[in-house]
Structures are given as structure tokens and as C-alpha cells.
């Protein structure tokens, strides 16, 4: 077998592997999409696979969600939006400032230790925090408030942002900043007018990643919120564990509404996100 033929075989095998894995990833998503158009009868007797062929799709789950129960769904949805955006923004401002500082200033030669200290947070199991947070936020009277979630999610996202952004700022040329400062700009101006715009790809990546993290977080929300401040994942499990009849079609519609925004955002910004995900690890 010649080299070219060998290469062709390899390419074909590669596409087979990729196609297979893509299918594995696709099937559950396909299933949830078609389920959201199913009626009760399509799920009680046997599995049905193809709309129009083995079942007649209907819009009733979507009508239920967006017409009948819109307000009931809107509160947790807005909670999730607010909590995710505010906590990611706070974390982005605080975390990237610290990342910038660690890239540009010398803290007695301990910069690396400080960054490692930030990252050590990842080692701590979430279970260790929920017990303490429950009592801590009780004392502060902040249980069942969005503020509690914002505080926790911000602090959860900061170490990662510091880690990635520090490396990002390291890679930016220092000369532009220096000349701006000679022209009389102060550090704050330099950070926000020069460094941050240059680091925009990194900022976008870490922002979207913290957003997704906050949007999908479950354990802390389950522990700290009761009714008023519940977020989408918590709302969903409450519907799932609703005894009686599990309304798969309604649940599927809710799942899709909660998943589509983040998946769309993540996939649209694929380049940055993959960069953000793999960035730290590539460094070492």
C-alpha cells in the first residue's frame, strides 16, 4: 500500500470516528427536541423516533411554557440571567484587574505563588463550602436572595479569571502602556483604555465561561435559595421530582430554553472558549 493510499485510509477512518462521536453527542439533543413536540400518548406506549412518521408533533409543550405558564417560568429565568451576568461582570472586573496586576507588578517575587494560591481553590470540594455558606448566609440574613448567589459565583469565577488573564496580559507588549504613561495616563486609564481592549479575546472567553458556570450551577443554588431566588437548574429539578406524572414534553421544552442560550453563545465564540478552556493547561 502506497503512502497516499495509506493516508486516504487514515482520513476515512478519522471521519468515521468523528461521525460516530458526533452522532453520540447529537442523539440526546435530537431526543429532547422531538420530545418537546410529543404528546402524552406518544410516550406512554412505546418509544417513538421520527416526527410525522411515527408520531404527530404538537406545539402544546411550547404553548404550555410560553403562554400558559410564562410568568411561572419567567421568575427563575430572570434570576438566572441576573445572577449569571452580575456575578460574571463583578468577577471579570475584579479578576482581570488582579490578573493585570500580577502580570505587570512585582510582589516580592511571589507572583507565581499568589496565582497558585488562587488556583488552589479548585481543589476544595464544593461540599465543604455549602455547609459553611448555609450558616454564613443565615447569619447575614441573605438566604434565598440573589445577592448570596452573586457573591458565591463571583468568588468562584475569580481564580480562573486571574489565572487566564494574567497569562494573557503577560503576552501583551508592555511598550504601548509605557508610552501612554509617559503621556500622563495613570494605571487605571492604561488598564481600561489600553490593556483591556487588547485583551478582549481573553476577556470574552473568561466572561462567557464564568457566565456558563453560573448559569449551570446547581449545588450552591440548591442549598442557598428556597423560593424567591431559585435559578433555572433548581427550578428544573423541582419539576422533575414533582411526583405524579412526569411531563417529559414540558420538561424537554424547559430544558431547551435553558440550554439554547448558553450553547449558542459558547459555540458562536468557539475560538475564544476553546482558548480559555485549554489556555491554562497549555501553560503547564
Amino acid at each position, binding site marked *: 500500500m502506497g503512502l497516499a493510499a495509506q493516508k486516504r485510509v487514515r482520513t476515512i477512518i478519522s*471521519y468515521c470516528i468523528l461521525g460516530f462521536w458526533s452522532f453520540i453527542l447529537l442523539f440526546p439533543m435530537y431526543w429532547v427536541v422531538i420530545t418537546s413536540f410529543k404528546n402524552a400518548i406518544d410516550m406512554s406506549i412505546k418509544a417513538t423516533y421520527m416526527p410525522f412518521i411515527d408520531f404527530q408533533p404538537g406545539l402544546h409543550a411550547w404553548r404550555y411554557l410560553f403562554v400558559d405558564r410564562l410568568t411561572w417560568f419567567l421568575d427563575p429565568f430572570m434570576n438566572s440571567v441576573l445572577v449569571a451576568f452580575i456575578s460574571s461582570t463583578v468577577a471579570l472586573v475584579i479578576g482581570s484587574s488582579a490578573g493585570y496586576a500580577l502580570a505587570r507588578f*512585582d510582589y516580592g517575587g511571589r507572583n507565581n505563588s499568589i496565582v497558585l494560591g488562587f488556583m488552589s481553590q479548585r*481543589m476544595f*470540594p464544593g461540599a465543604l463550602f455549602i455547609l459553611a455558606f448555609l450558616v454564613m448566609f443565615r447569619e447575614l440574613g441573605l438566604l434565598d436572595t440573589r445577592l448570596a448567589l452573586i457573591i458565591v459565583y463571583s468568588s468562584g469565577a475569580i481564580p480562573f479569571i486571574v489565572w487566564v488573564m494574567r497569562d494573557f496580559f503577560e503576552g501583551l507588549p508592555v511598550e504601548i502602556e509605557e508610552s501612554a504613561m509617559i503621556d500622563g495616563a495613570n*494605571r487605571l486609564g492604561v488598564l481600561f483604555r489600553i490593556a483591556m481592549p487588547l485583551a478582549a479575546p481573553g476577556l470574552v472567553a473568561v466572561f462567557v465561561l464564568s457566565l456558563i458556570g453560573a448559569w449551570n450551577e446547581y449545588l450552591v443554588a440548591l*442549598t442557598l435559595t428556597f423560593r424567591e431566588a431559585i435559578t433555572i437548574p433548581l427550578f428544573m429539578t423541582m419539576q422533575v421530582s414533582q411526583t405524579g406524572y412526569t411531563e417529559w414534553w414540558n420538561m*424537554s421544552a424547559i430544558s431547551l430554553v435553558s440550554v439554547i442560550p448558553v450553547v449558542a453563545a*459558547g459555540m458562536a465564540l468557539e475560538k475564544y472558549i476553546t482558548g480559555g478552556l485549554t489556555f491554562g*493547561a497549555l501553560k503547564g
Partner: protein
Amino acid sequence: MATEPQIYPSKRSRFEIRDNLWKWIFLVPAVAIILILLAVPVLWTLYAAFTDLHLYRIGDFDTKFVGLANFEKLLSNRSFWRTARNTVVFMLGVVPAQLIIGLTVALALNNITRGQKLFRTWFLMPLMVSPVVVSFIVGRMLFQEDIGPINDILRSFGFEGVPWLTSPTWAMVALMAIDVWQWSSFMILMLLAALQGVPPDLHEAARVDGANQLQAFWRITVPLIMPITMTALLIRIIDAFKVVEIIMVLTGGGPGQATESVTLAIYRTGVKGGDLAFGSSQAYFLLIVLMIFGGAYLVLTRRAMGKD
């Protein structure tokens, strides 16, 4: 590609004195927030682990120090060891599977040119989906025993339906499948980044020297992607030790206690049951195990790679 964390030369700014204030203004908020929200829980939990603190106790009871009683109870508690075992089994199941799938798919992805970006984007999808949704969709619907599609397909090929959620063994398999579905992508993307860092001419040179495909892979590619692989593995191992959400949604720890992880047990005893003291001692146990394991892992992989 560095095998050690790079030691960055500290950049001397000419504006150090004027900047002294900003230097602290930028750093202190982040440090303060992390210190408060890390140190307070860590210390409070340590304190709680040595008391009989309880959330739901009726009447007036003073919190007492009980010394090591919670840890003694922990070590002799069969339920706790069951959850520890479940967690380790889960980790040992998912991490190698993710590594194998990750490597296979990443190699395939590295091998093609047309459509690479498309696949990469698609493979990102599971990482964006919340674990709650994943275990609802994949778990609750696909693994449904009676009329779920997986059993339905198995039956149409003449197999028996699998008791996905009622058999202790299969329930664990179902959970592993969910985790593999979601997190293999992380391995794929990490390993792809590593593979793309391997200079193609090195490979060619080895081939010219008479090494076959496999030998070239083992001698050139594997050592070069090893550092990233090790980091990715550590991240996945730690995450697998902390698994909880998919279990809560899919099995609730059952059947029996067959799929209850340590973190779920902590939630169950500490938050739900209100036994903050015993929950804290379990959380500390998990923390200590993670610390020892993570430390040993780092030291051993560094040393092994140092020899290469």
C-alpha cells in the same frame, strides 16, 4: 511546550513608585474576596467537624465540643465507606474512558483538515449544557427502562432491556455514561491542542529514520503531549471526585446506596438532615483525600516526566 510552570522574569516597570498604589488596588479586592470566601468556610467547617452542631434540633441545646467523635463515627460508618467506594469506582470508570475517547477523537480530528473547525465547535456543545439538563435528558429519558429509546433499540435487536436505574451496577454505568458524554469533549479539546503543538517535521523525521507509524507515535507524539494530558487528567480526576449533580437528578443515590457519592452524602446529612457536624467531618475527609492525592499526583508526574 514547557514541562515545568514557566518562571516569568519579573517585569521591571519604570513607574514602580507612582504605581505603588494601583499595584495594591488592583490585587487586594480579588485576594480579599477569595480569602474571605475560602478561609471562612474552611475554618468554620473545621470547627464544626469537632462539635455536635445541628440545624434542626428542637429546644435549647448548647453546642458542645466532641473532639474526634465525628471522625471516629466516620471511620466506622459503613454507609460512609460505601459512598467513598462509589466515588472511587465512578472516578476509575469515567476518567480512563474519557482519556481513551478523548485521545481517539483528538487524533482523528488532528488527522483531517476539511471540517475540523466544524467538529471542534460541535464537540464544545456538551460542555455548555448544565449537568442537571444532561442527566435529565440523557439519563431520565434515554435510560428510561420501560419505553426509553436505549432499551427499545436493544429489544428490537433481540436483547433484554437493561435495568438501568434499578440495578445497582447498571445505575452506576448509566451515571458514568452521562459523565463520559459530557466531559469527553474536554479531553478531546485539550488533547487536540496538545497534538497541534507537535511539530509535524519531527514525526516525518522519525518516519525517515525507519520508525513505523506506531513507533513514531509512541516515541515522538506521546512524550510531547504528556504534560497537557497529565494536567487534563488531574482536572478530570478532581472533578470526578466531586461528582454530585448528575447523581441527584438521575438516581438520588439509589438504588439503595449504590450510586451515592461522598458529596451527595454530605449534602444529605449536612444540609438536608441538618447534621452540620457530621457533614463537616465528611467534607474534611474528602478535602484531605483530594489534597493528598493531588499533591502526590503532581510530584509523581513531575518526577516521571523529569526522567523522560
